[in-house]
């Protein structure tokens, strides 16, 4: 079967800055992939290109073999691309349930779900994320971690085939991260959603879950390998430490 998502030689520049340089990658159906890279390495830009916030300057983005390089963001959502943001962006004045229901109303199942059905979908996902207590609260009243969870719930309500999570675990303590990773693992398997989680550092939790790790450095993909392999890759170690293990020893 063809890959769910394919990037072919994708480049994106901002003035003189090359945020993405000739990036190639593939994500398979149902796969859990970690994207790692230091600050400014191009992770958010990568998501923005996949998701249609920016169009690539060069190269192509293929989703289920279809070229979506120039498709508007909302159309990408309706064919199965979901996303959460680095800094949560809830619909502040709406309740948690309404926020999540919006995902069901307009995401990939939007065409066949009416308002009432969307509310039911929202309730079951909210329960799953452990947010039931906050269901009728305005989203702006949630704590930052709850907002993150709500954003994930909202994205899952869209029934995406691919879920991009930008710094999903930032600001959470280890217990919360473990719980979230476990939850996502379950969702990924059950709903067959491929999850691409982006994190600043290679974290134990992500390494444990991810089928593979992609490492970005200054806009280039420097590693694309199973987790353990990526951790031991000298190029990866160099980009985080600034020198190679050989030099050090």
């Amino acid at each position, binding site marked *: 079967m063809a890959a769910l998502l394919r990037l072919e030689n994708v480049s994106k520049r901002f003035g003189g800055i090359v945020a993405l340089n000739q990036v190639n990658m593939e994500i398979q159906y149902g796969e859990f992939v970690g994207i790692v890279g230091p600050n400014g390495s191009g992770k958010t830009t990568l998501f923005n290109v996949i998701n249609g916030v920016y169009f690539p300057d060069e190269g192509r983005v293929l989703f289920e073999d279809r070229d979506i390089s120039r498709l508007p963001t909302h159309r990408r959502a309706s064919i199965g691309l979901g996303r959460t943001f680095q800094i949560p962006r809830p619909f502040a004045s709406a309740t948690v349930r309404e926020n999540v229901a*919006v995902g069901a109303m307009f995401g990939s199942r939007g065409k066949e779900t009416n*308002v009432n059905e969307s509310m039911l979908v929202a309730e079951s996902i909210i329960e799953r994320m452990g947010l039931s207590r906050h269901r009728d609260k305005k989203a702006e009243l949630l704590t930052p971690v709850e907002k993150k969870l709500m954003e994930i719930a909202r994205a899952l309500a869209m029934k995406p085939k691919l879920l991009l999570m930008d710094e999903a675990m930032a600001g959470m303590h280890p217990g919360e991260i473990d719980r979230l990773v476990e939850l996502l693992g379950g969702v990924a398997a059950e709903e067959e959603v491929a999850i691409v989680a982006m994190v600043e550092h290679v974290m134990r939790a992500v390494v444990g879950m991810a089928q593979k790790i992609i490492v970005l450095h200054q806009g280039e993909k420097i590693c694309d390998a199973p987790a353990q392999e990526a951790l031991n890759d000298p190029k990866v170690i160099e980009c985080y430490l600034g020198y190679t293990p050989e030099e050090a020893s």
Partner: protein
Amino acid sequence: MMRTLDKYAAIFPVLVVYAVLFLLGLNMSGMWQLMATLLFYCALGQAFNIFLGMTGYVDFGYVAFVGMGTYGMAVTITSLAGTGLGGLTIIAGYIMALAFSGLLSLAVGAVALRLRGAYFAIATIGVNEGLRFLIEGTNLWGGSGGIIFTRQLNDILGKDASSALATFWADVLVLIIAVLAAITTIVYMRSKIGYALTALREDEDAAKVMGINVTMFKILAFMTSACFAGLLGATAWALKTPYVFPPEVFEIHYTIEAIIIVMLGGAGTLLGPVAGGLIYGIGKYVLSIVLPGFQLLIFAPLIIIIIVAFPDGVVGGIRNKFGHTALGRFIL
């Protein structure tokens, strides 16, 4: 059935207020004109709220749509006078009013709604002023001389009927437009349209990521709101007073009044524009009697105080307090 009733329960307070205004006007001598004015303010607020309240975009050129509706009716009446169509002329006038304001809003919306925040607001001022200069400069529709169509209206409807229209029936039509605007608002709110608009009002980029075609929904709200403005113009500014002059119908002052009404009452709420229309209309009336000449001096700070006390508008504030009680479903 019960669930549907519950879903639309919030419309009842609006209808009650309109009914009370109507009955007061009918039964208390000398009150009709005041009630008609209040109804006009409520209708204007209700119409504007569909765009301003639901999308959060501020259209400083809103009055242009009222003006276009006025012209639609005026142009139709002057060109169809003498064809013997009678009352059908008025219906044709409404269709033309809808076409004028609808098409203008589609053209403006398709371009200006790509701008955000202050840029959108400035662009809309430009449209309003530009349209006025276009009409005056190119002598379109009588240019700066405007259109006076009292005689044509008399020919079409007869003298008695057209004076009954000006003094009574036009105001009843305004009431009907206000009710239609309120129904449209609650139907939008309870459907996917309302959720899409709430989402894009709160965060446009996040709304796109959810799969919402934000441009389409903004244009829909913009056009709906503009069409109601057109109906109001055709009624309150054309049928009630059968003349139209560019400086009057493109006067930005009316847009400001509409913004104040919506903000006072509560932007994006259903009952808000009614509350805002009443507070604004009654305030202006009372002050003009008590302190003639100084009303604005007193009124401006009063409005500021209300807006500071109720940042979400009067209805928004009440809803924040009582939204969770049994009465909550009537406050929207």
